[in-house]
């Protein structure tokens, strides 16, 4: 059901492209990121990390480090909560987080934290860290998802599996998902062609440019202050309080400016450690990860092993589809296999479909969310098979997708019936785009893929305070990871009828608003945006009440128009419009400060679909790929600030290009990460990317006052498949493993073994 008050046109602010309010700070260096904060008497923390993929911690001797000049505190697991208990699957997530933040009895991956030290300088801390002696008993390890499921695999942690995991599976398989409908056997029997293929993707890192950093102060009285770069400071507050046995409200957390997150800053790594060091030293402690620590010990996404089977009639009708998705997410439960399974066939209206997911533990760092967690890999596998079917049956790839496309009312592959969705509109826009009809040059191949992401609502609180001069202070609790302060200010200005520049939007600390869920799930423009609109409407209601009192008429006889209170009709009497600033100038004497609020858990986040078109060239002699043209078409519901929507589209494509072509976690036989630097973890550089063209499709989300759908994550769902299809068509051979690095492409071409 559409909101009664939904507005989808006639906007004054929405759809324009003003400068972002944080822009000047960022280009002049005035913006303060995680590592930019200092405090009087501050110490520097450093974390000792396991060099082994799997090892029992026999003994930690901190005496030499503690005796060093400048060393003020050393902590180990003994300095954290003992009341957080392990539990199976995701029910044990708080304990999993604690175990990841500081190892207990066993180091579970190369880079796992085992102790930490605070000293008077960064160098002293580094020297002291080296003086901490850890005795390990090395255990057998496994880092590959398929090997971790095999009978002879070392058990990473017994009794972690949820009851849903089928009997007889290896204890490393800890969670299981199964969904679908129809009769697969009958469906495949109807097909003229069935294609079945195995796919593999490697773990990739979010690659944010700012390493994790924080400044923590915690006293013996249990009162603390924490400054950190995070996508969600209320979550940091809650988790740190639990891990250190604090009262939640006694820990105030402030989110710094953030140099990228992409899901990787939705959890805690160093923050509880800095707090524990600070409590022990009774001084502020700053911890800043090195890039190597970021790669080794913060969360990459899952690696996968997948089997896809799809049957199709000669006319392009899909008769049945099934997928098995094995995801490893490191030494803890949590690989997003249910999302992988659920997103896999979401674009298609299928009579017969089945998807099965396995969450598998290995000796790797605990996975963290990465932009539509799990969905890009699923699209890679499924959309590759769709492309192969189209090639073999000589069908147009967009027409075939349109023929099978999910629409409003279609039963989704994972159960629910779709509300109003915009997949068909993205396919039609892609088909009409000049890119799709541009002839390919020799050596080039073209790839198409659709992609899907759920999007999310989540707990949200916003407050909008008016100033005497008629300007507005908007307090939100969702860290700005994509230009959201601009879009929030635009929505507030739209409702209040004042200029965009008159609204200052601030991401406030945990003491200033109710709980705000993390900036994740592409929820910010949807949920904080909805809350901003509702808070502004709340303020408007109060403004109207002041005008009504002044005019001596009932409150409901006043309405808000173009930034002024006006009588709602002829019966309300003759009164000149009363501008916002005139009401606020007197508000102290007419009832006090005017503040609008909204607190809720909105549940109408509309899903988003996209279609990408990619042209790629492959050097047949070296296996090197270049992406020559790229077009993103995505449903944004309603683009508040089109430039930042386009930025999200382009960013997803850029990260997808890296993931598809060169990014991967490379492990040695010893289970150690081989490429924990940006030199050898090859994200694309600017010159690797073509200009990424964008088309914003707007099919309004019925669950948002202006029709907004989240856009941040869907943009990374199609690229892996679209690029793989382009490369496969250019190379003349199907690529089934990511990244499609030059050695893998030459192997696929049969150039060498």
């Amino acid at each position, binding site marked *: 059901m559409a909101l009664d008050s939904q507005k989808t046109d006639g906007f004054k602010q929405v759809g324009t492209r003003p400068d972002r309010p944080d822009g000047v700070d960022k280009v002049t260096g005035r913006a303060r990121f995680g590592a930019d904060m200092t405090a009087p008497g501050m110490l520097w923390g450093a974390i000792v990390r396991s060099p082994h993929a799997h090892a029992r911690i026999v003994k930690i001797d901190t005496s030499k480090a503690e005796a060093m000049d400048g060393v003020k505190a050393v902590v180990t697991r003994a300095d954290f909560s003992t009341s957080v208990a392990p539990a199976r699957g995701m029910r044990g997530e708080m304990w999993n987080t604690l175990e990841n933040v500081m190892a207990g009895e066993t180091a579970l991956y190369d880079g796992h934290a085992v102790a930490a030290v605070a000293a008077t300088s960064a160098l002293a801390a580094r020297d002291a860290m080296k003086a901490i002696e850890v005795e390990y008993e090395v255990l057998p390890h496994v880092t590959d998802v398929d090997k971790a499921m095999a009978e002879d695999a070392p058990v990473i942690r017994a009794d972690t599996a949820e009851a849903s995991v089928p009997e007889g599976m290896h204890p490393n398989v800890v969670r299981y998902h199964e969904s679908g409908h129809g009769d697969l056997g009958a469906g495949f029997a109807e097909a003229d062609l069935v294609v079945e293929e195995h796919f593999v993707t490697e773990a990739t890192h979010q690659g944010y440019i700012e390493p994790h950093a924080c400044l923590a102060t915690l006293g013996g009285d249990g009162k603390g202050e924490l400054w950190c770069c995070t996508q969600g400071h209320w979550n940091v507050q809650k988790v740190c309080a639990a891990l250190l046995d604090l009262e939640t409200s006694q820990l105030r957390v402030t989110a710094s400016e953030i140099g990228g997150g992409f899901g990787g800053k939705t959890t805690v790594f160093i923050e509880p450690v800095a707090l524990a060091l600070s409590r022990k030293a009774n001084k502020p402690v700053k911890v800043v990860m*090195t890039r*190597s620590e970021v790669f080794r010990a913060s969360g990459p996404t899952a690696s996968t092993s997948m089997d896809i089977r799809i049957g199709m009639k000669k006319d392009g009708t899909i008769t049945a589809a099934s997928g098995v998705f094995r995801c490893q997410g490191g030494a803890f439960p949590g690989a997003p296999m249910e999302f992988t399974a659920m997103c896999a066939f979401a674009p298609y209206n299928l009579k017969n479909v089945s998807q099965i997911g396995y969450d598998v533990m290995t000796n790797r760092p605990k996975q963290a969310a990465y932009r539509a967690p799990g969905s890009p890999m699923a699209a890679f596998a499924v959309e590759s098979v769709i492309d192969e079917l189209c090639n073999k049956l000589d069908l147009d790839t967009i027409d075939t997708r349109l023929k099978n496309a999910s629409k409003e009312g279609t039963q989704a592959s994972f159960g629910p019936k779709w509300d109003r969705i915009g997949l068909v509109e993205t396919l039609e826009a892609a088909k009409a785009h000049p890119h799709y009809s541009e002839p390919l040059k020799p050596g080039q191949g073209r790839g198409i893929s659709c992609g899907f992401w759920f999007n999310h609502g989540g707990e949200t609180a916003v407050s909008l305070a008016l100033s005497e001069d008629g300007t507005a202070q908007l307090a939100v609790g969702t860290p700005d990871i994509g230009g959201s302060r601009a879009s929030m200010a635009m929505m507030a200005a739209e409702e209040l009828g004042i200029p965009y520049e008159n609204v200052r939007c601030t991401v406030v600390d945990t003491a200033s608003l109710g709980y705000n869920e993390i900036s994740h799930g592409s929820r910010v423009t949807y949920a904080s945006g909805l809350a901003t609109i509702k808070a502004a409407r709340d303020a408007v209601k109060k403004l109207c009440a002041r005008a009504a009192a002044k005019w001596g008429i009932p409150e409901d006889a006043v309405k808000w128009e173009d930034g002024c209170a006006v009588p709602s009709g002829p019966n309300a009497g003759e009164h000149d419009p009363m501008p916002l600033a005139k009401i606020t100038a007197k508000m102290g004497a007419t009832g006090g400060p005017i503040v609008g609020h909204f607190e809720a858990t909105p549940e109408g986040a509309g899903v988003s679909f996209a279609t990408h078109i990619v042209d790629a060239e492959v050097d047949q002699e*070296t296996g*090197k790929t270049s992406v020559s043209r790229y077009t993103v078409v995505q449903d944004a519901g309603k683009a508040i600030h089109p430039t930042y929507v386009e930025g999200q589209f382009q960013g997803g494509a850029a990260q997808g290009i890296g993931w598809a072509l060169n990014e991967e976690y490379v492990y040695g036989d010893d289970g150690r990460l*081989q*490429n924990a630097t940006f030199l050898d973890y*090859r994200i694309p550089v600017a010159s690797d990317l073509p200009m990424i063209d964008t088309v914003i499709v707007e099919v309004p989300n019925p669950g948002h006052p202006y029709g907004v759908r989240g856009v941040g994550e869907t943009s990374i769902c199609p690229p892996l498949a679209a690029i793989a299809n382009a490369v496969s068509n250019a190379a003349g051979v199907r690529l089934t493993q990511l990244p499609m*690095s*030059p050695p893998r492409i030459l192997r696929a071409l049969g150039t060498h*073994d």
Partner: protein
Amino acid sequence: MQYHTPATFGDAVAIASGAEGVTRFLAGGTDVLVQLRSDLVEPDNLIDIKRVPGASDITKNPDGSWTLGVAATGAEMSEHAELGRDWPGLVEAMDLIGSTQVQGRATLTGNLCNGSPAADSVPAMFAAGVTVSVTGPDGMRQVPVEQIPAGPGKTNLAKGELISAVHVPARRAGGGDAYLRFIPRTEMDIAVVGCGVNLALNGDTITEARVALGAVAPTVVMVPDAAAAIVGTTLDDAALAKLSEAAAAACNPIDDKRGTIAFRTHVAGVLARRVARIAYDRAKG
């Protein structure tokens, strides 16, 4: 750690000769400072030689040869039009290293002494027939650049010895050089294979050739068989095929995160062909 800024190479040699523990020479610092910051090495003595007078000079000698100071940077080489006309391959190899910022610091000598088999400028120097002045406790000697690398991260320089100048031969008429590397990206990466070729022609026929490969063995290597495959030819398809085979045969690479043995060996052959064609076209003018 002691930081020294000697005024002469003699002083630098004296400090290095008498130093205990780990000594590092510092010019641009694009390797040494990175190693320090990433905690790979903490030298007891860091000897900064870029303040030695003339260390940044690029000089064309009366006989047409070139002398480059040990602190002359990649950016200074790229901006030197005449050097680029004589030795485009050497200059383009140096220019491939790192970012614009790194180019403002990085030096040929540092690239050589870092001892990486993947160093971009080194195959180009090998191919060009570059020699270096080695100054040490026993005085100065001039040695071919091929004699400097000893293995990954290692050189044949003895304790107290340093490189004090780089000598590039005169470019004779009918000559040309080129360098290409294979990386999976377009820049800011390290060579998976590198290849430098320097040729001299008489008419259309190659009379002299030097071919060097990087990142396919513990050090950059000269490949005389590859040179022999094209000398006396007009770089026809048969000669290119032989060149390719000889280049591949000279490879003794490793499997690592950057590339496999099979991939490096294959691509060495491909690159040798491509680089030879560029050098040949340049030589023809």
